[in-house]
């Protein structure tokens, strides 16, 4: 089972406070698959993603993954003193990436604010910088929590292309979304 899936999670349950967010939930992600998580605010989309990422321990169930993942949460992970160039160089070093951070920043449309400190970047520029991390090293699984937040139409089109390219080359994406998915989802899971 796990040999032909990137993620196999079975019997997941999560409790927040006194409330059961979900229980006996099975989630799987195959190669080339785009899984969209849907549900109203507070339904547990973020919690599910955090469980799959290993950040939060599930109250029930197990998660098996075949391969490493990239994470994009609500917080972009950009330090207030870091410029997009420094941010991408930092993670390139940390992850042993051969990619050219500068080329990736340009690709993300960050050529102009390349040397602007994080605290002065707009929300969209920060999100583009964080998305640049996904291209530093090739990781089969992308876990994205509301990835289109703060992006302009250009940015949305760019991220849609990134997701399509990633899935065409064998990767898988799980994204929590509100509103219409700009890309064609393989499957939807409503919490």
């Amino acid at each position: 089972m796990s040999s032909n899936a990137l993620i196999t999670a079975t019997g997941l349950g999560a409790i927040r406070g006194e409330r059961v967010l979900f229980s006996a939930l099975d989630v799987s992600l195959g190669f080339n698959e785009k899984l969209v998580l849907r549900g109203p605010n507070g339904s547990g989309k973020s919690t599910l993603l955090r469980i799959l990422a290993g950040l939060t321990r599930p109250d029930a169930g197990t998660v098996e993954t075949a391969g490493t993942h990239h994470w994009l949460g609500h917080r972009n992970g950009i330090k207030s003193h870091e410029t997009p160039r420094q941010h991408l160089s930092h993670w390139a070093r940390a992850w042993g990436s051969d990619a050219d951070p500068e080329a990736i920043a340009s690709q993300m449309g960050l050529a102009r604010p390349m040397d602007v400190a994080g605290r002065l970047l707009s929300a969209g520029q920060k999100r583009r910088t964080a998305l640049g991390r996904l291209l530093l090293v090739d990781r089969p699984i992308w876990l994205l929590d509301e990835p289109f937040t703060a992006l302009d139409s250009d940015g949305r089109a760019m991220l849609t292309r990134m997701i399509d390219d990633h899935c065409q080359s064998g990767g898988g994406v799980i994204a929590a979304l509100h509103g219409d998915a700009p890309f064609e989802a393989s499957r939807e899971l409503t919490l």
Partner: protein
Amino acid sequence: MNSPSPIRAAFRQAIGEAWAGGAGALLPIGFFAGAAMLVPFTIGSEASQLAAIGTGVLWVALALASLVSMERLFQADLEDGTLELWAQDETPLFLIASAKILAHWLISGLPLVVLTPVIGITLQVPAGQLVPAMLAYGLGGLAFFLWGGVAGALAASVPRGGLLIALLALPLFIPTAIFGALSVQTGLEGPNILFLSASTLFALAVAPIGASAALRLAVD
């Protein structure tokens, strides 16, 4: 992929962050000097009296100064999302926590040690006693920063957790303070300096594990 590059990157980022805070990295130094310099004004400037308490005053000032900027060490990482990324890295989180604490010590802790002879002289401590004492203050200061790091990690998710950090860390300082003070009083002769070294080594081994466990809770 067990290369040390994530650890190096974390160290480098922490150094950059310390400098980027403007004078923030220098705050502990100012606090250390200021706190120690108050003593002659409150105790009186009689040389023999000051000399008797001088080395102890330096220990108290060092312990308090090491906590001054501990609040932001992990809190900033938690708030901006960096901690989430480190927590998912293949590199064990305790190594990342160690790198961050050591970088912080290098910027804010080592200068305190360098400063001890200068302040010691103004407290009438004999100069001959001060230079060897730097070894003890260096070892003790490192232990203070390590325990402070655990407290900082525990308080990372607490808004305005500065006071909580002091309450958590100060009891952990006691063994270091005891053996540190005895070492300096006996001029680094005898077993006390060995006990001080042992307490610092213990902190080096245990504090990063404690800090990483606290950070995992904070990020959950």
